[in-house]
């Protein structure tokens, strides 16, 4: 009888211990850390700079007739898809309260980059590579993205 009771108590204690873990995890959910968000922002900005730079290089090489059209189109399409993924990944993250303003600015900049790379893809589809204004805009955008990424990297 006594041993049965001890077994029941032991089982209850084990069950309580097992339940305590998830319950504790629920109660200790904290707000996201600003440093983690900064790291994600830095990565998103530098990845986006890479996509803009890649699309620009493809367009510029095609403009100088050193790249055949299907190849240029594949490169710019891949850059557009990757740019969309970068923006989506960062926008899905919960923003810490002290980074709300920065998050808005970063997401706006990423949205501009996505639109610009989409514009580059439209040019590639149409076979109109000779657009110095677009190339110039992409170059400045890539520099700005890299600069912003550096700002978040240095904290």
């Amino acid at each position: 009888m006594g041993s049965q009771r001890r077994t029941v108590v032991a089982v209850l204690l084990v069950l309580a211990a097992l339940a305590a873990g998830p319950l504790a995890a629920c109660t200790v959910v904290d707000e996201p850390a600003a440093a983690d968000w900064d790291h994600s922002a830095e990565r998103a900005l530098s990845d986006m700079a890479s996509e803009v730079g890649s699309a620009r290089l493809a367009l510029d090489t095609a403009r100088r007739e050193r790249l055949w059209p299907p190849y240029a189109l594949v490169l710019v399409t891949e850059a557009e898809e990757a740019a969309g993924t970068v923006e989506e990944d960062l926008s899905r993250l919960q923003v810490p309260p002290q980074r709300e303003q920065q998050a808005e600015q970063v997401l706006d900049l990423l949205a501009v980059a996505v639109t610009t790379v989409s514009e580059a893809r439209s040019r590639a589809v149409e076979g109109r590579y000779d657009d110095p204004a677009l190339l110039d805009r992409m170059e400045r955008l890539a520099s700005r993205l890299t600069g912003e990424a550096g700002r978040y990297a240095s904290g």
Partner: protein
Amino acid sequence: MKRYFAVLLGVLTAIGGFVDIGDLVTNAQVGARFGWSLVWIVVLGVVGICVFAEMSGRIAAVSHRATFDLVRERLGPRMGLLNLVGSMLVTLLTFIAEIGGVALALQLVSSVHHVLLVPFVAVAVWIVLWRAKFSSIENVLGLLGLTLIGFAVALWQLGPDWSEMVATLSPAEKPAGESWATYAFFGVALFGAAMTPYEVFFFSSGGVEERWTSKDIGVMRANVFIGFPLGGVLSVAIAGCAAVVFLPQGIVVESLGQVGLPVAVALGKIGLAVVVLGFFAATFGAACETGLSVGYSLAQYVGFQWGKFVRPTEAAGFHVVLLVVTVLAAGVLLTGVDPIMVTEVSVVFSAIALPLTYFPILVVANDPDYLGEHSNGWFANALGIFYLVVITVVSLAAIPLMVVTSMGQG
């Protein structure tokens, strides 16, 4: 004269056949992110593959049996099974990546999405595996793979500052923005790409297919010690092109199209066409080699009749395995998985499986019962043991580095 021709052909096909999708992607990624600071890993990997390919070629030439035919006999079925499972899974993963690589190469000239091309590529690979002669696969695709020399020409044309390049060869010249963990992860991936296990499966089984004897050891050594290092030069040229064009602009390499872009910048459409032909030949050739390697290793373990030196009806089990793995590879790629991601995973898992592949080779190459007077000398053993230590460290470090760096994301 015939012998000189055989040496020349062997060396040329070894150069052209050295690079595969793993080398193409990993070298370009590393060049774009780390410049020249990881070139020493390519040198380390090329010397390593030379050491073990020479041993496995010698085993095939003297014993007339492929390496893994002997592993089960020499080390027992349990060790043989461990070896089979580890090495074969990595080779299968590489096979999937290579078929994806062929589809990506065709996408670059057609702009048709690679997933739509996968079934056609798989059928073409299977027909070649079924119908083509072993020597035709090796020679035609190996010689076409030589067109990747376009990367070396492009690098010369891009005109990097050679003195600055030499100054940045040291690991200490790693870009400041990259962590040491990421540097080590890409070092592991590069080493795994250079020492891919299927290369020795294919090399030793190929020796049996071509009926090498002890008299062929000289030709085999010429292929390994001249062809493989020159193939390694192509790997360095791919990394160099990416370092010159992408690193200053902060562009990260994520696709096969980007790998060829520096060649277009340097040489224009004709240079690019030559290199894209090289992409096709390198990936198609490696798809055939990895497909055959899966069939070889399974058939050699189980004891089926294997090889292309016998008619398909006499090696039915072997050909069924080739068909099944080709269908499996196509099925995986048709899910829409990114072939570049499969490549990245395959080179890391190659690094993990290295001891399973190379330890048994060292054991068998030391056994006088199989190799007699041709068993390893002190120098081969010293190199073999040194590399065994290196590959064990690399293998143990691979998974922690993969987790810590999120597959090199930083």
